[in-house]
C-alpha cells in the first residue's frame, strides 16, 4: 500500500522534473544571446531541412485532403440540395482546423522525428559534449537554429497546405462535379472571414510550430545516449507532439470561438 503510493509519488516527481528540464531548455533557447552573423545562416539551413524538404508531402496531402473533403461534402450536401455551399464547407474546415492540425501532425512526423534522431545521435556520439569542451555552446550552435527553423517553417507550410487543399476542392467541385465556378468562389468569399478564419488558423499553426519543435528538440537533447534510447526518444517525440497538437487545438479553438 505504502509502496504503491511511493511509486506514484516518484512517478509524479519524475514527470515534473521532465517538465522543468524542458522549460529550462526552452528558456535557454529563447533567452540566449543571439549572434546574428552566425545564427541566421544556421537557421536558414534548418528552414531548408525542415520546411523546404517537407513541402512535397504537404502539397500532396493538402491536395488530396481538399479533394476528399470536397467529394464527401458534395454527396452529403447534394441530399439537401445545398451543393452550392461546398465552397464554404471546404474553405472553413481547411482554414480553421484541417490546415493547421494536419500540417502540424505531418510536420511532427516528417521534421520533428528527424530533429530528435539527429540531436539524440549527436548526444550518443558525444558530439554535444565535445562542443562544450571546445567552448561552443551546443544550445546556440545546435538547438536554437533547429527550434527557430521549425517555428518559422510551420506557418508557411500551413499557408501552402491551405491553398493546395482549396485548389483540390476546386478541382473536384468545379472541374469534376460541375458546380458553377462563380457560385463556388462567391459563396466561399461570402462566408470566409480573413481575420477570424485565415489569421486565426495561422496563429494556431505558430503555436503548433513552437510546441512540436520544442518537444522534438527536448526529446533529442534529453535522450538516453544509446541506440535504444534514441529509438524511444524519436517515438516519444512524434507521439507527444501529436497529442499536444490535438489537445492544444481544442483549447485554442475554444478560445477563438468564444472571442478570447
Amino acid at each position, binding site marked *: 500500500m505504502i509502496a504503491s503510493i511511493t511509486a506514484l509519488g516518484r512517478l509524479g516527481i519524475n514527470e515534473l522534473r521532465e517538465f522543468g528540464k524542458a522549460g529550462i531548455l526552452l528558456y535557454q533557447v529563447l533567452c540566449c544571446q543571439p549572434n546574428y552573423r552566425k545564427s541566421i545562416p544556421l537557421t536558414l539551413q534548418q528552414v531548408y531541412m525542415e520546411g523546404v524538404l517537407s*513541402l512535397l508531402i504537404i502539397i500532396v496531402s493538402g491536395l488530396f485532403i481538399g479533394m476528399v473533403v470536397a467529394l464527401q461534402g458534395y454527396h452529403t450536401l447534394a441530399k439537401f*440540395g*445545398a451543393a452550392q455551399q461546398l465552397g464554404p464547407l471546404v474553405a472553413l474546415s481547411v482554414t480553421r482546423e484541417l490546415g493547421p492540425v494536419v500540417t502540424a501532425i505531418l510536420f511532427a512526423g516528417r521534421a520533428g522525428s528527424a530533429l530528435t534522431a539527429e540531436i539524440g545521435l549527436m548526444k550518443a556520439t558525444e558530439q554535444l559534449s565535445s562542443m562544450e569542451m571546445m567552448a561552443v555552446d551546443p544550445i546556440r550552435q545546435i538547438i536554437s537554429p533547429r527550434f527557430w527553423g521549425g517555428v518559422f517553417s510551420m506557418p*508557411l507550410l500551413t*499557408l*501552402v497546405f491551405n*491553398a*493546395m487543399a482549396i485548389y483540390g476542392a476546386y478541382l473536384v467541385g468545379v472541374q469534376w462535379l460541375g458546380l458553377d465556378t462563380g457560385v463556388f468562389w462567391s459563396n466561399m*468569399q461570402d462566408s470566409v472571414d480573413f481575420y477570424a478564419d485565415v489569421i486565426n488558423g495561422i496563429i494556431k499553426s505558430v503555436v503548433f510550430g513552437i510546441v512540436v519543435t520544442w518537444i522534438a528538440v527536448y526529446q533529442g537533447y534529453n535522450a538516453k545516449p544509446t541506440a535504444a534510447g534514441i529509438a524511444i526518444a524519436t517515438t516519444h517525440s512524434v507521439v507527444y507532439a501529436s497529442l499536444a497538437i490535438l489537445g492544444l487545438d481544442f483549447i485554442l479553438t475554444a478560445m477563438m470561438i468564444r472571442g478570447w
Partner: protein
Amino acid sequence: MISQRFIESIVGLFVLIAMLALLVLAFKVSGLTSFFPGKGFTVTAYFDDAGQLKIRAPVKIAGVQIGEVKRIELDPVTFKAIVTMRIYKKYNDIPDDSSASIMTAGLLGDNYITITPMYSQAFLAQGSQIQYTQPAIILEKLIGQFIYKLGNTDKEEQHEKP
C-alpha cells in the same frame, strides 16, 4: 554538402510560395477585395428587391454565364437596389432593351441574374442601364400570399353557408 547560397535561394523561394498562398487565401478565398478586375464592361439595373443576391453571383443568358454581379447598393431616393454587373468583353452585342430578372437556382439555391435578350439594334455598353427588371421571387412572400388567399376562400365559403 549543399552550398549556403543554394540553401538561401531555395528558402527565399519557399517564403515566396507561402506568401503567394497567403495572397490566394486573402483575395480568392476570403474575398478581402477583388484584386484583379478582369476585362469587361459594367452595366447597372434597378431592382425593387435584390433578395439574397450576392456579390460575384453569376449573370446568365439562356443559362450561360456572361458576367458577374460586382456591387449591390441602395438608391437613397427611390429605395431600390442598384445592382452593378460586369459583363465579359466578348458579349458586347446584347440588345439594350433586354430585361433582367433575379432567379433562384433550385428551391433553396442561390440567386443569380438572367438577362432575356430583346430585339433592339442598339447594344449594351459601358455604363448603360437595363430598363426592364423583375425583382427576386421571395419564397416567404409567396407562401404568405398563398396562405392569405387560402384563409380568404375559407371565409367566403363560411359567409356563403348561412
